[in-house]
């Protein structure tokens, strides 16, 4: 398999073409936006934390490449139900995959991003939504909801 096929694995293409959890969930009351200054792409993550500090709703908006769209989409599926520390751990796992190009022990969907390792210029695409999500968890909830 070429580096290129590795970059655009079926899972990534699938999420890029049919992103999950696109848009702002009605109950969401926290949000943050991440920018990729190099390419002008951006990603806004909306979410709601339940009383136990777990993500009860999450969605994203913004425009980006296949990698960043797929990463945002998979991120939402991965983070649903997680607490902030758990989200940090998951993100650390992704960063590890990106840094080493090796899939994780507990093979999960994030493994699809191992191929990005060979494209250093694209690594920021794969982390954009994650930065926004972790940022959003730290914000104060909007009073309106």
């Amino acid at each position, binding site marked *: 398999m*070429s580096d*290129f096929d590795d*970059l*655009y694995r079926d899972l990534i*293409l699938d999420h*890029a*073409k049919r992103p999950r959890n696109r848009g702002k969930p009605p109950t969401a009351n926290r949000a943050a936006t991440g920018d990729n200054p*190099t*390419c*002008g*792409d*951006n990603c806004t993550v909306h979410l709601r934390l339940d009383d136990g500090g777990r993500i009860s709703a999450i969605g994203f908006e913004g*425009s*980006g*490449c*296949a*990698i960043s*769209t797929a990463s945002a989409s998979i991120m939402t599926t991965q983070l649903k139900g997680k607490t902030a520390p758990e989200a940090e751990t998951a993100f650390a796992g992704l960063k590890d995959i990106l840094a080493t190009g090796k899939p994780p022990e507990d093979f999960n969907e994030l493994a699809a991003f191992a191929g990005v390792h060979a*494209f250093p210029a*694209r690594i920021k*695409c794969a982390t954009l939504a994650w930065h926004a999500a972790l940022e959003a968890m730290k914000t104060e909830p909007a009073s309106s909801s």
Partner: protein
Amino acid sequence: MPFAALRADFPALHQTVHGKPLVYLDNAATTHKPRVVLDALARYYERDNSNVHRGLHALSMRATDSYEAARARAARFINAADPAEIVFTRGTTEGINLVAQSWCAAHLRQGDVILTTEMEHHSNLVPWQVAARRAGATLRFVPVAGDDAEHGLDLDALDSLLTPQVKLFAFTHISNTLGTINPAAELCARARRAGALTVVDAAQSAGHEPLDVRALGCDFLAFSGHKMAGPTGIGILYGRRVLLDTLEPWQTGGGMVASVTYEGAKWKPSPERHEAGTPNIADAVALHAAMDWLDALGRPALAAHNHALAALAAEMLAEIPGLRLLGPRPGEPRAGLVSFALKDAHAHDVVTFADQDGIALRGGHHCNQPLMRKLGLTGTTRASFYAYNSADEITTLATSLRRIVKFFGSA
């Protein structure tokens, strides 16, 4: 195309990328350099290398002569009246910063207006934002408006924008994002009638089209060597002599002073006053070789070649489903580039895919974020052509793009 034989002169073109022959279509970012330019660079270092000015030994005199010959060559290249109208800079960006900082500090007042356009490269936009803010002046924009948003400037809006408050009109000769060729001589004439000085960003035109500053009637004009077969690190700011001789220097230091005491300094006239410190001698000498190469090729012929390739590309790309082509309408003159958006594929994915086919493209906002936003895009993919590109390469591009559409397509 008769230019095919040129390829042999460009060492960088003869390589494969991911196993495919390199198809280099990122010339608006930077062009490759012909052997004669690399030879001039090597020859300078192997034979004449020395510091210029003030030096009286053989190598230093040769270095000074070579450096000043490059300046005189640049004056002839753009038909300036005098070599003293040529200031060597790092590139277009530095040239524009020089004018934006030095001229504006002396002449721009609260309530004045700097006019520019909505299609400027960040390098011809941000320096004016900063200068306007410092002076309490206002920045206004000639729109790329209405139906023409994707195509060119709204020239009908110009006269009402050229109010007596406008002190300076800065615009690009050729848009690096749209491929639009602005009517620079007309814009300069209208600005002059309105009492405004003109600054022309010639980054995309200097090494591509015939260029005559006296025919244009501009006051300042800036361009980069690396976009015209020359090396990185060298560019030219042209300014009318009377302007440059009185302009306060922007950078100060060795070489630009007539006399110095511990208390203060007096400046030399132009061009020295605007070239503080040891200049980029070797790259000025190499740029001389690039200008010779360009004129041996013939800039009218080069422009025709680039325009023809762009017209062909526009034609072939227009047939690709879901492709939105920016810039001049079919039949209108188009500089040597095509810029486009695909419905289902993001510019960065397009560039990564094309790279697998050996094709070098540029994707993104092309240092033109506000225009992208105005056009409702986050970026485009751009293919830009130069002397060594061929119609075959455009066919390769079109084929690759069709595969990309299929690969990323939602169908």
